[in-house]
């Protein structure tokens, strides 16, 4: 029942085209920077490829919570803590891309913002909180785990907020409904993310401490890019209603000012009504279109079958 609010993978059709394009611009920009910042050394490529598969598989691991529900992992923060945020962004990009392309989880046109939410926001927000949290909690040996937990939680909530914003700006949902709903649900889901992330880090730290060193200094490489990028992203997202086709805000203004009527008339007077009178009635037109549609499909079906039969009989000779 809560299906859509549990997933952050937006399907096609739920974001406006202009908003989707903005999303792609942001995604391409960030991923391009990530590819350069990471400077994919030879050694990095197999690591990132296998770890992308790891994150994908790790998302299958769950734990029962109550009454049939279970906690899951997205993995952005975990990847960021293990690999650094830029490499994590690449890892998550691969995960989101393959989920959409192979498993139909998340749309193609809207993938831009899906990437922003799950491949940019989760690793960077998670890592930022982890980074500063660790600095605050240096007095405690478990401090880094607490920082990681809060970071993981925050990353999920931030991604959910961004998702809600994108849906609202596209006119798919009312902000005053979708934002509290997304935040509320993901504040709980984020707890699952936090717990699994910490469990994984504890396991790794005990088994191979060389891979996760809580004492290691945090590389500051590229942090100015992050700040600049996030600022740009915020500004662009807030401005995209101007590009959005959502009729609520903008059209209202246009109508009031009388622009709308003039805009509509111009190029489409080519075929006057009287030539096709039946089409004037909306219901009739839709039904007619439906009948035409079915006829087309039937013809194609019959034609394809006939062609195939002829091809098969020719092959049999």
């Amino acid at each position, binding site marked *: 029942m809560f299906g859509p609010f549990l997933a952050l993978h937006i399907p096609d059709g739920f974001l406006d085209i202009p908003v989707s394009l903005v999303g792609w611009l942001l995604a391409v920009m960030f991923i391009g920077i990530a590819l350069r910042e990471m400077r994919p050394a030879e050694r990095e490529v197999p690591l990132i490829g296998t770890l992308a598969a790891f994150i994908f598989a790790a998302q299958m691991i769950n734990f029962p919570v109550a009454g049939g529900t279970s906690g899951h992992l997205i993995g952005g923060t975990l990847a960021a803590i293990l690999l650094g945020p830029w490499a994590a962004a690449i890892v998550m990009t691969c995960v989101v891309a393959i989920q959409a392309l192979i498993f139909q989880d998340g749309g193609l046109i809207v993938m831009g913002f899906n990437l922003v939410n799950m491949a940019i926001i989760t690793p960077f927000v998670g890592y930022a909180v982890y980074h500063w949290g660790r600095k605050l909690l240096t007095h405690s040996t478990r401090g880094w785990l607490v920082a990681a937990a809060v970071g993981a939680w925050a990353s999920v909530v931030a991604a959910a907020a961004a998702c809600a914003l994108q849906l609202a700006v596209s006119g798919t949902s009312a902000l005053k409904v979708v934002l509290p709903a997304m935040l509320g649900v993901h504040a709980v889901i984020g707890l699952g993310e936090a717990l699994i992330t910490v469990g994984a880090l504890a396991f790794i730290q*005990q088994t191979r401490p060389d891979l996760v060193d809580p004492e290691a200094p945090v590389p500051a490489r590229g942090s100015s890019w992050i700040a600049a990028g996030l600022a740009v992203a915020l500004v662009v997202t807030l401005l995209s209603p101007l590009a959005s086709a959502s009729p609520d805000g903008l059209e209202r203004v246009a109508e009031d000012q009388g622009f709308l009527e003039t805009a509509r008339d111009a190029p489409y007077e080519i075929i006057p009504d009287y030539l096709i009178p039946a089409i004037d009635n909306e219901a009739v037109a839709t039904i007619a279109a439906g009948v035409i549609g079915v006829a087309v499909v039937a013809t194609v079906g019959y034609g394809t079958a006939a062609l195939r039969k002829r091809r098969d009989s020719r092959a049999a000779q």
Partner: protein
Amino acid sequence: MDHAAIEIANLSFRYPDGHLALDDISLHIAPGEKVALVGPNGSGKSTLLLHLNGVLRAQSGTVVVEGEPLTDATIGRIRAWIGMTFQNPDDQLFSPRVRQDVAFGPLHMGLQEAEVDARVTQALAAVGLSDFADRISFHLSVGEKKRVALATVLSMAPRILVLDEPTSGLDPRARRSLIELLKTFTDKTIVVSTHDIRLAYELCSRAVVLDSGRVVADGPAERLLTDADLMERHGLETPW
């Protein structure tokens, strides 16, 4: 005890891709029996084992364990009665330390901490790894991991042991010591799925030959496993 340890009747299972893995399987295993399940790759051995503790659910037919039919209500108890290990020990050790992995079963059953500790100690002793409690599972050798995996199910005090390829990947010495270890579990019902015909011969009194999802032979291990014709026909070999 007048009921069978495991009673399978007309079990069939088809994978989502259409492949019929089990075709009308019926099997009766008495308490304390040691049964070897042999057959070529793809014969359905692993699929059959996964039905015994409800990881896979029968599409037709029934599975009855210790007199209880396997349903949503009984699945929890049945999983405590059946200790199942899998071919790859790396898939079964998911805690940092051995102690935590062995404690998982009893903890899940809701036992008290003192009882859990006792069980862990017993289980590790039973597999000869008493000093390994605080070791990191990940760093152990394959043989040691297989023993720990066995300990993780022994700690639940199961009446039935189901082992999927227990000796695969072991060097001769580790293999020998595991076989000797398994021979000590005289009171438990044991079902071993294996390619290691020698193990089957040494450990088990009964052999069930599975091929293409069907039981093609079921009888004394001594007779079946030395039947060169039968073994050859189903992609297997005799013990020597």
